[in-house]
C-alpha cells in the first residue's frame, strides 16, 4: 500500500470515529410537545422542539442567585466523591416529580431530551424510549449551549403539604411543595441550591440553564449528578445525601430524588482537554516514528 493510500485510510478511520456519531442523527420516538411552549418549534427535524423564548422566571426566596464569591466558597461547594456511588451505572429517579429536559447546542438546536412522567418508570430518553441518565446512555449537554427544563409535581398518590410553617405567610392550601429546599450536585464541577415557601402552591416550573454563559470555558467530561427536593424542610440548606440516606433525611416528608450520568461536550469549539491530549498523543507518536524505530547499522 502506498504512502498516500495509507494516509487516506488513516484519515478515513479518524473521520469515521470522530464525525460518525454526529452524522447519525436520531429522531424522537416520544412526543414531548405537550410539555413545551408553542414557540419552541422543531427546526432540525428530530422531533424535539428547538429553543424558543421563555419568559423570565422568578427566583425562589432561598435560591442561591449569587454563587461562590471566594475561592474558599467555591471549593466548599464541590461535593466529595464519597458522596457518589460511582460504581452504579444506572440512574435513579424517585418521588412524585416529573418533567422534561431538553439539551440544546449553541445554535439552539436540540441534541438530547429526556422525559419523566412522575410514575414508576425510570426517566426515559425521548429519542430511544430507553432508560436515560445511565452510564451507557447519559444525558448529553453542550457546555456552550442551553438546557431547558419543564418540571411538575404529581398530586395523585403523593403526600405534599397544603401549607408551610412560616408565621404570617398566607399559603394557598393546595397540595404542593411548601417551605422546600432543593440541591443539585454535579461531581467535582458544580453545586447549586435553593428553595421557596411557595405560598402560591405552584405545582410546575420551567427555566433555562445557560451553560454557555455560566461556565467559564467549554469542556468535555462524563460526570455523575444528583439532586433532591424535600417538602417542608425550611430555609436551611440541605446536608449531604444519597439514595440510601434521603429517606431518613426526609423523615416522612414528601421528597423527590434523582441520580444519573451526564455527558458534557465542548460543542463546536475545540476544548482545551482535547487539544492537550492531541498534543501528547502527537508527541508520543512522533517519538515512536522517529526515535524508537529499529534501525539498520553496520556491524562492528
Amino acid at each position, binding site marked *: 500500500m502506498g504512502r498516500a493510500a495509507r494516509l487516506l485510510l488513516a484519515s478515513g478511520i479518524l473521520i469515521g470515529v*470522530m464525525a460518525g456519531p454526529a452524522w447519525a442523527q436520531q429522531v424522537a420516538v416520544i412526543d414531548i410537545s405537550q410539555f413545551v411552549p408553542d414557540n419552541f418549534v422543531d427546526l432540525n427535524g428530530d422531533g424535539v422542539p428547538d429553543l424558543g423564548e421563555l419568559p423570565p422566571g422568578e427566583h425562589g426566596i432561598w435560591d442561591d442567585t449569587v454563587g461562590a464569591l471566594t475561592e474558599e466558597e467555591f471549593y466548599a461547594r464541590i461535593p466529595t*466523591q464519597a458522596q*457518589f456511588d*460511582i*460504581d452504579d451505572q444506572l440512574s435513579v429517579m424517585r418521588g412524585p416529580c416529573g418533567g422534561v429536559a431538553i439539551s440544546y447546542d449553541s445554535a439552539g438546536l436540540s441534541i438530547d431530551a429526556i422525559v419523566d412522567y412522575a410514575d414508576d418508570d425510570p426517566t426515559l430518553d425521548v429519542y430511544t424510549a430507553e432508560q436515560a441518565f445511565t*452510564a451507557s446512555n447519559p444525558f448529553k449537554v453542550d457546555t456552550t449551549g442551553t438546557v431547558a427544563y419543564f418540571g411538575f409535581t404529581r398530586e395523585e398518590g403523593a403526600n405534599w403539604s397544603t401549607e408551610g410553617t412560616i408565621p404570617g405567610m398566607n399559603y394557598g392550601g393546595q397540595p404542593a411543595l411548601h417551605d422546600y429546599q432543593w440541591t443539585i450536585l454535579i*461531581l*467535582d464541577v458544580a453545586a447549586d441550591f435553593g428553595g421557596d415557601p411557595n405560598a402560591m402552591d405552584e405545582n410546575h416550573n420551567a427555566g433555562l440553564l445557560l451553560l454557555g454563559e455560566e461556565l467559564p470555558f467549554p*469542556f*468535555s*467530561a*462524563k*460526570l*455523575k449528578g444528583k439532586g433532591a427536593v424535600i417538602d417542608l424542610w425550611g430555609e436551611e440548606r440541605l446536608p449531604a445525601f444519597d439514595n440510601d440516606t434521603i429517606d431518613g433525611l426526609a423523615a416522612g416528608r414528601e421528597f423527590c430524588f434523582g441520580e444519573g*450520568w451526564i*455527558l*458534557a*461536550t465542548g460543542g463546536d469549539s475545540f*476544548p482545551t*482537554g*482535547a487539544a*492537550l*491530549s*492531541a*498534543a*501528547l*498523543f*502527537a*508527541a*508520543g*507518536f512522533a*517519538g*515512536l516514528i522517529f*526515535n*524508537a*524505530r*529499529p*534501525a*539498520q*547499522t*553496520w*556491524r*562492528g
Partner: protein
Amino acid sequence: MADTVVKKHPLRGALWGSLMGIGVALFLIIGYPVIGIGDPVSLAIQVGLVIAAGVLVGVLWAMFGPAKKLKGDPPRHVTMDEPAPGEG
C-alpha cells in the same frame, strides 16, 4: 562488503508509547469522554490499561517495526599502515 545488524530500542518505544497512551487516556476522559470521572481506583485502572496498551504498542513497534535503512557507504576501517588523507 560490511555486514549490517538491526538495532532495536524497546525502552525508547516504551517511553514514547506511554506518552501516546497518556494522550489517548486524557482524550478518553475529557476530549471524547468514554471513561467516566468517578471512583479514583476505577479511574486509575482504566487509565492504566490505556497507558499499558500504549507501552505495548510502543515496544512492539520498537521490536518489530520496519527498520530504517542505511544511508551512505559503509564506514572505512582506517589502519595504522594506511596513510592519512593528505599525506604522501
